[in-house]
């Protein structure tokens, strides 16, 4: 172990869930052909003016609230000036000195990660490079993303490991998705994360930080941080110096590379945007957003464990709000623990195998709760559940109806024959069972189920075993 410890701060950009862009009425739909969601305003034509999207401001308030921030009743948009072909106005409208919310925190497990600020801004466009190719040799600009509303959430360097950065991102994403603030989908560009990282000896003040960009998944964030911490530690141990610079993560090589040094950094010449009035928030606007906040993941988890779910079960179920909502509907009419169990073992497998979004689960919760009830009533074995579940899931079938088609061996005489055969073949277990070891019956019952492919009525099997024990049946 090295005596160096890292300090990590994250800058997360999330796309706010609005239908139209931040300062014009263009659509925010993902995947439209290049330069189709554009207008004079978001392409920075001469003479245009921006106008604020009210919904984006509301979502920013809501985000500030769930991140425990102080909501600023007066905040300003500023211009961040720099030249780049994906930035049509040559300035980005952002918030600088007076952000809409600041000084909050996010609980990641037991650890409190403080938030410096969460501010509104607009996204830039995208450059598509076709250098050396035909028919286009050069770079093209797609301005569809230009003007998409973003919230930049900046944390203090309170994160002390790549794993915690990973957990922070997961927790943040879950929170924002629950509250309907953002989809936080990295693949669709609705969440991006830059990291500021430095290392220092325990007890010393913060070291020189580098900023890492270009991570495409939470795992890449973790990998990039792991690499960068090792790199910095090595440099310092060898008596070298860390430069304040921006570094790009290269996922193929698993390394970060220096992009630009601080000395070459832009002077963005921020100043309040004279085209936009300040944002004035009323108490009503803030309390309205408070009302819009649903039960959040941490509260749900607490409630579920109180219902009897294990920590693990609760964590899995709350991970996605839609899954948790589904679970609640199932648990309304059945035993919650058993419901969680079946959801985790069977439902999630189907969902993952078939790659179905939670919003489109074909099986309705009523049918699933019937299945849970059959299970808790002992009327169905795990083996049968395993057999019927795929069909039930796909066709949204009532489990009772599916059971009709399954030949259940319920003739006591026949079951007794199979049980006696099982006893013959598991003599040791039978003797143990007779000697008072209840658990030993499991091996015999398992054998019976295997023979009958799970179709023997387990209640009857158990009953027969007890009878035979009382008769002191001998193998």
């Amino acid at each position, binding site marked *: 172990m090295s005596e160096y410890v890292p300090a990590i701060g994250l800058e997360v950009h999330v796309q706010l869930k609005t239908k139209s862009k931040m300062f014009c009425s263009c659509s925010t739909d993902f995947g439209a052909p290049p330069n189709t969601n554009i207008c004079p305003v978001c392409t920075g034509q*001469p003479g245009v003016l921006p106008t604020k999207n009210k919904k984006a401001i509301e979502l920013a308030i809501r985000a500030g609230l769930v991140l425990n921030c102080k909501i600023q009743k007066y905040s300003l948009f500023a211009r961040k000036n720099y030249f780049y072909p994906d930035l049509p106005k040559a300035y980005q409208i952002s918030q600088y000195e007076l952000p809409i919310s600041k000084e909050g925190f996010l609980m990641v497990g037991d650890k409190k990660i403080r938030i410096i600020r969460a501010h509104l801004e607009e996204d830039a466009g995208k450059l598509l490079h076709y250098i050396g190719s035909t028919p286009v040799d050069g770079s093209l600009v797609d301005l569809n993303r230009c003007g998409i509303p973003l919230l930049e959430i900046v944390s203090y360097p309170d994160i002390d490991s790549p794993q915690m950065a990973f957990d922070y991102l997961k927790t943040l994403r879950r929170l924002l998705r629950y509250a309907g603030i953002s989809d936080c989908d990295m693949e669709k560009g609705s969440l991006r994360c830059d990291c500021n990282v430095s290392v220092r000896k325990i007890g010393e003040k913060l070291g020189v930080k580098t900023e890492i960009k270009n991570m495409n998944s939470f795992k890449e964030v973790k990998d990039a941080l792991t690499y960068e911490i090792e790199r910095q530690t090595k440099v310092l141990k060898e008596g070298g110096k860390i430069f304040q610079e921006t570094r790009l993560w290269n996922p193929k090589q698993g390394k970060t590379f220096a992009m630009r040094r601080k000395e070459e950094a832009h002077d963005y*010449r921020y100043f309040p945007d*004279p085209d936009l009035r300040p944002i004035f928030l009323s108490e009503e606007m803030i309390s309205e957003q408070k009302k819009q906040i649903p039960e959040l993941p941490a509260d749900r988890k607490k409630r579920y464990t109180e219902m009897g779910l294990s920590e693990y079960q609760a964590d899995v179920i709350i991970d996605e709000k839609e899954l948790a909502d589904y679970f609640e509907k199932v648990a309304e009419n059945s035993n919650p623990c058993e419901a969680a169990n079946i959801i985790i073992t069977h439902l999630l497998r189907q969902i993952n195998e078939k790659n179905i979004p939670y919003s489109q689960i074909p099986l309705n919760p009523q049918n699933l709760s019937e299945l849970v009830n059959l299970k808790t009533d002992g009327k169905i074995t795990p083996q049968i559940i395993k057999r019927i579940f795929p069909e039930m899931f796909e066709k949204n079938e009532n489990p009772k109806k599916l059971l009709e088609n399954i030949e259940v061996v319920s003739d006591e005489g026949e079951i007794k024959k199979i049980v006696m055969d099982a006893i013959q073949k598991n003599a040791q277990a039978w003797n143990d069972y007779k000697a008072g070891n209840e658990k030993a019956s499991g091996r015999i019952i398992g054998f019976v189920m295997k023979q009958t492919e799970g179709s023997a009525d387990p209640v009857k099997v158990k009953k027969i075993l007890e009878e035979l024990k009382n008769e002191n049946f001998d193998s």
Partner: protein
Amino acid sequence: MSYFDEIKNYLERIKKQDKYNAFLEIFEQRALNKAEELDERKKRGEKLGNLAGIPVAVKDNILVKGEKFTCGSKILEGFVAPYSATVVEKLEAADAVIIGRTNMDEFAMGSSTENSAYGPTKNPHDLKRVAGGSSGGSAAAVAGDLVPVALGSDTGGSIRQPAAFCGVLGFKPTYGAVSRYGLVAFASSLDQIGVFAKDPDLLESVFDVIYGVDEKDETSHKIDTSPKNVAFQRIEGYPKIGVPKEFLNCSQEVREIFEKALKGFNIVEISLPHTEYAVAVYYIVAPSEASSNLARFDGVRYGRRIEGDDLISTYSKTRGHGFGEEVKRRIMIGTFSLSSGYYDAYYLKAQKVRTLIAEDFRDAFKKVDYIVTPTTPTPAFKIGEITDPLSLYLQDVYTIPASLAGLPAISIPAGKTKDGLPVGLQIIGKRNSDFMLLFHDIFYFTGEK
């Protein structure tokens, strides 16, 4: 006479008689199409708009969809407006005929229209003299009777100063009274579209069409419209007119004409103590905003592009060749003022002083109804006469304070010098009192009604 013939006459007149270089282009087809449409609709007995058939010239920084515009610059050469400014939409909806675009100082930066990439505009009263600027083309077009009315834009005096030089009415409304959507921004917190005319009634009816809240412009707001329906009555002692002592360091001749025009009015001497800082404040705030507003002219999306070896050199070649000297000078001043380490000392400080200047006016308006000043310290100067930028900046010394305070102000002809050059008188009103200014006071000073 049909609308068609009338517009045709105007077009002919502009073609033949624009010896002032007032127009950069006439929109012949657009104007004739509109005139034809009006004749058709009239024949069908339809009700036409309030400005039916009135030809309006627009300054070259106001967008008219489908027409070229340049802001008096080479950098936008060949670019066609992809949409119409709100004011143009409103004028066309009122059946006015947009007849052409007028010359201006490049990106509205200047006080003589000598900074146009398309040559200076000459003053109809003396062709050797400037028409003023930056809306010199619009002022000369009206003064030379090429059109009865024209739109301009005023950032620090760009309507009032050329109006004074050309002897016409030039009205700069309250900041935010008229939508800026479709006006190419120079200094966003100061720019305002306004009107030139000779006839105060026509000026008022054009303003009546273009003013109003626009959802495309957050800085637009409601103004006081109550005077619109109130017939003016002369009340003893009203209006009380304040003349700020800081505004009288003008030429002897201007001062004499000014004082003569004010005879018989209820005059109070007032003080606007922060006036001396106004020009300095303006030349920090306006270039700062301009440096950001003009950054989009980079050759990537529209207008002229001069390819360099790489992106940066394409930017600098395009901008180096495309912009004129004065524009580059102001971009440099603005870029410097906003730079980190200088922001507090320049931009922020200037904004604070701007607040003090606005407070001066607020205090003064507790005592008086209007503030009246000469519009300019001198009448129109000769083309090429002033070459030092600072001396040219001082041309706006009387118009800048009202711009910084966002107040409505109008320049009206007050008389002529011995050489026959017009002298303007500026009336500044309270914020949002635009209709008050138009209804009462033009009448007072010009005695035309």
